[in-house]
């Protein structure tokens, strides 16, 4: 059966963890949120060496030739560590949409690229780290210049408006749709990873923090909230796996949408609960919890809102039902 994670996938996840932890774990996101991009660049280089940036690129083109299941395994770890940088854009969206030379440079990490998809992903992420920016539409790709960085709810993310700076190249709409679904799947995996980390942090805190003479994790009021997060994350996970196996098939779009909705809802529940368990200390920028609390909201609104994804499922299972505009 395809439902069990393989040894190789487990090893990939562990290798990513080791790389990020060797650079200080959340210290990378923390530095990015304080305007220091150097650790994020160092992480990018090391993950490129590991092959992560070429995960979705064929071996013949210098990549790893990984499967969509490999993609969710890897991106879950990026979400777990709140790793900053345009990984979804460079590693999942753009490889199939750019020319072979750039594809190879993306795979080995010598180029970092970001993108905006008008009406869907309106702002390009972290252009300050990038050598290239692109505007992607349903059937074209255009090199672009990035405007001033704008603040995101997540201090480790910087958002840029793009303006065209070169001729548009035509693209196969099916290839674009598939690339967007692949990146969306990656965003769902990051949400799941962030949700798992939020739960872990909250559980660890509930075992330490004492009030009324006992650790707060003894109280059912918290236990049941944390159990609800466990339930939501546990049942989001198989939808991601299913979507990865379905990517590129006729039911691929709606499976993808189901995964994004479930991962967003579960991660937001995890964020709310983790904040409530931490109390006031969680409401500070100083505490690492803020890294995931804000990342979850950024990822839930990027790559298609839950409203958009629900409408895409409705259009598939109900007739008639209209797909909403992606930005709705």
């Amino acid at each position, binding site marked *: *059966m*395809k*439902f*069990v994670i393989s040894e190789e996938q487990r090893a990939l996840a562990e290798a990513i963890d080791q790389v990020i932890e060797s650079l200080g774990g959340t210290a990378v996101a923390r530095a990015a949120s304080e305007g220091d991009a150097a650790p994020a660049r160092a992480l990018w280089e090391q993950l490129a060496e590991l092959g992560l940036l070429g995960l979705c690129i064929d071996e013949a083109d210098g990549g790893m030739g990984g499967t969509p299941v490999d993609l969710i395994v890897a991106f879950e770890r990026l979400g777990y560590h709140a790793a900053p940088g345009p990984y979804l854009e460079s590693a999942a969206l753009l490889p199939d949409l750019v020319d072979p030379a750039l594809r190879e440079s993306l795979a080995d990490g010598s180029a970092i690229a970001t993108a905006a998809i008008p009406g869907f992903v309106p702002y390009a992420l972290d252009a300050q780290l990038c050598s290239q920016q692109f505007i992607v539409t349903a059937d074209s790709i255009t090199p672009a210049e990035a405007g001033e960085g704008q603040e995101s709810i997540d201090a480790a993310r910087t958002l840029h408006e793009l303006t065209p700076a070169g001729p548009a190249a035509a693209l196969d709409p099916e290839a674009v749709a598939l690339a967007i679904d692949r990146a969306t799947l990656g965003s769902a995996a990051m949400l799941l990873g962030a949700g798992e980390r939020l*739960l872990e942090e909250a*559980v660890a805190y*509930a*075992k330490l923090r004492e009030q009324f003479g*006992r*650790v707060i*994790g*003894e*109280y*059912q009021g*918290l*236990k*049941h909230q*944390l*159990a*609800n997060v*466990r*339930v939501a994350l*546990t*049942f*989001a*996970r*198989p*939808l991601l*796996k*299913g979507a990865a*196996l*379905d990517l590129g*098939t006729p*039911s691929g779009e709606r*499976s993808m949408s*189901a995964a994004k*909705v*479930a991962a967003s809802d579960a991660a937001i529940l995890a964020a709310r609960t983790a904040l409530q368990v931490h109390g006031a200390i969680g409401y500070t920028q100083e505490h690492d919890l803020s890294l995931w609390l804000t990342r979850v909201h950024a990822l839930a609104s990027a790559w298609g809102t839950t409203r958009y994804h*629900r409408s895409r*499922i*409705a259009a598939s*299972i*109900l*007739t008639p*039902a209209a797909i909403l505009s992606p930005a709705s």
Partner: protein
Amino acid sequence: MDLDLTEEQLAFAAEARAWLAENVPATPLPSMDTEAGFAAHREWEAKLAAGGWSVVSWPEEYGGRGAGLIEWVLFEEEYYRAGAPTRVAQNGISLLAPILFGHGTDAQRERFLRDMTDGTLIWAQAWSEPGAGSDLASIRSTAKRDDERGGWILNGQKTWSSRAPWADRGFGLFRSDPEAQRHRGLTYFLFPMDAEGLTVRPITQLDGTTGFAELFFDDVFVADEDVLGAPGDGWRVAMSTAGNERGLSLRSPGRFCAATDRLIDLWQKNQDQDPFAQDAVVDAWIKSEAYRLYTWGTVSTLQEGGDIGAEGSVNKVFWSELDIAIHQTGLDLLGPAAELRSASAEAGGRWVDDYIFALGGPIYAGTNEIQRNIIAERILGLPRGGDGRKAS
């Protein structure tokens, strides 16, 4: 999605589908929790058994097909999709039989297993007592040794005993060592419902039927041959049932996928333009899909030698809430007519009855609060205590 099913598995599912299409009653049977409905459901069990579909995963010598887990899940999907009757034999087949296979004597397996596959022997469960619900280990009904007759004398009261009004036999836990506390000193008994001294008082449920009953034991003699597992070891023996009830066996994904299909049909018929209603239908679909995929994942894990353990509690919270959400949405779509029990029989569903049935989900088989405690303590590793519960 490609589940890597073999030709044989696909053929098995097709055979089940064809048999069900041929044999499932066109008009739904009356509720099994009425006298006439119980009898009709008993006959359905006989028909299922004659077709070889009653207990597909059991060994052939006991009337099964020796089918694997994957085949079992496939059969259940077909069963629910076909709108086949509720299994009146479920207590025996799903809860008791796994224990008989694991802890029973050869003689017990011979006496009971085959008869419970064809409706000859329907079981009632007798876990709860007036003072022992979520806190099941506080059972006070007693079993006193009777060496002269070679057996035990049962006294006390059981309640919420499902199928008891018309069942043939019952199973439950009794305190056989009055000195022992909580989980110790309990013994698992199998007793005939017409035993001398046993009084059955049916309880009318929320939907007006009598699915369960109170049982009063007044010096009921049970012979040694009707003790399941070792005397005093009843808790451990019973918990293998509880795990089963909470876990994979009781609620196959077929049930929720079929209910969601009916919900989608209902939405198509009513064409409710309310975007909130549309979202609720979509969410029912997403969660049914999640449950289906989760189940296949569990099957994979079990096949690779893993076990479910406390994950069964995660499962139970999810499906019981999903069941209510699906049927609540159905009632919402029906609008003002949803109140009428007859009018609610639309799009293949009996929405009022199904909704009332779903309301029991978060209560039986261990309330969802107990399940959340288990998730918090055994999966998340949070400490016990702080709420007055005694250590187990």
